[in-house]
């Protein structure tokens, strides 16, 4: 059967747009991670750091995870005068990314065993958080040094050996041989398609044992 080229063109548009409009009519459509298909605003979940997205602001993170803005800025060596309304993705650099933030918040959420009682104690003590209406940034030195023996996005494999973490333990955690010792752990994870957060948590636990 022969088809007129005009009819063919119209059919293409009708089919293509028809499928999309049918899905939209059925409520199966969302063009942004900021809202659900029901139109409700998406917020990060306090229980799951993986719900943090690049478009979320420091203010949202500070409020939901009960972390002072100043702590976030200090942890990632971000300028102290960074507005709380800044989106995470707008701050991404070699030292800061949404992935780094997730890993750090997750490590803060890990319950710490009290040596005296053995009872799990959260280290997230109540601290003043950023209020959506009033943002107060504490002036800090621009050069921040991470607490000693803390895994960050800059820690190298050499650092781990310097901190007396056994080579064999590191191999087990990363699931392979050690790369060049100057390799940054986070870069190694990214290059090998591994998630940095669980590796960081596991290595931090080993580092803590050496303290």
């Amino acid at each position, binding site marked *: *059967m*022969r*088809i*007129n*080229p*005009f009819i*063919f*063109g119209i*059919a*293409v*548009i009708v*089919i*293509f*747009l028809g*499928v*999309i409009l049918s*899905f*939209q009519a059925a409520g*199966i*459509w*969302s*063009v*942004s*991670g*900021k*809202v659900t*298909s029901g139109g409700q605003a998406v917020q990060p979940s306090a229980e799951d750091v993986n719900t943090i*997205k*690049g*478009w979320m*602001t420091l203010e949202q993170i500070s409020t939901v995870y009960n972390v002072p803005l100043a702590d976030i800025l200090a942890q990632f060596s971000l300028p102290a005068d960074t507005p709380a*309304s*800044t*989106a995470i*993705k*707008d701050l991404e650099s070699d030292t800061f990314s949404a992935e780094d933030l997730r890993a750090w918040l997750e490590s803060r959420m890990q319950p710490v065993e009290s040596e005296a009682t053995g009872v799990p104690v959260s280290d997230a003590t109540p601290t003043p958080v950023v209020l959506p209406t009033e943002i107060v940034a504490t002036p800090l030195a621009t050069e921040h040094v991470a607490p000693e023996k803390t895994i960050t996005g800059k820690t190298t494999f050499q650092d781990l050996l310097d901190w007396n973490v056994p080579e064999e333990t590191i191999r087990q955690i990363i699931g392979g041989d050690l790369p060049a010792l100057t390799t940054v752990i986070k870069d190694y994870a990214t290059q090998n*398609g591994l998630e940095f957060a669980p590796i960081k948590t596991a290595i931090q636990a080993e580092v803590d044992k050496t303290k």
Partner: protein
Amino acid sequence: MTSQPLPVLPSRVKPRLRGWKSLLTHQTFRRVVQLGFAAFILVVTLQHVLAGESSGNVTASPEAYCPFGGLETLYKYITSGGSFVSHTHLSNVVVLVAVLVTALLARSAFCGWVCPLGFIQDLVSGFSAFLRKRIPGLRKAMNALKKRGSRLAFLDRYLRLLKYAVLAWAVIGAGVYGVMVFRDYDPWSALINIAEFSFTPGLVVLGITLAASFFIERPWCRYACPLGAASGLVGKFSPMYLKREADACKVCKVCTNACPMGLPVHTATTITSADCMGCLECVGACPREGALEVKIGIPLIGQK
């Protein structure tokens, strides 16, 4: 009484349309459709850039309408029960379904009628043709280049396979690593995110694509587009095909010269190639009535 076969009548030359009537062709219609979709994406992009991410208003990123994003996130969407890889949303999956349904019914017509990146390549190629027509020196130089380049024509069929490798890498990579491994190399992504002023390999690929479009039509679509590869494969099961009537055809090669994908239309009986994007440029260019037509037949077996 024995029946004698009717003698084949010589095909008629199509009447030449003049004045405004020459614009009433399916090619003009196709350009209007392409322009409409490109304008839509431009508006979405400007809206997103001007409103900004930190705005209280939710504006769609142009990436939300990219069907290939749907293909990259499909594995995660299915296996995780509804979550997506970064930069993709439900809309990507829906647009992907629309592209595949279109391919199933009308081959890769999405590429020929809708895709804005294809349209941009068409614009550059059209500009190149415009210049060649008006600057004899350029025309001579391009012809000389084409003559020299013809020695490498044997590479064409192998290079066309590259897009299937890109498709496999992008889809498997996204499935294994949970991120869009192709995004940094994607010229479309580079173009719609150009306002971010970030230098990515995709920007280089975009530059090469646009520069190559000056010399050959649709270079990205021919050799590297993973969405075109997926659409072409699904399109193999489409009932739509092009038929060249050997009796009416004078083998003038106008159709082959008009094909943006460089398919040898004038030697084929039926055009069912996965690379055919249903733009119907060949049908429009054919000077004879009934020599080249769009037809419907049973997929795979009834298209003769």
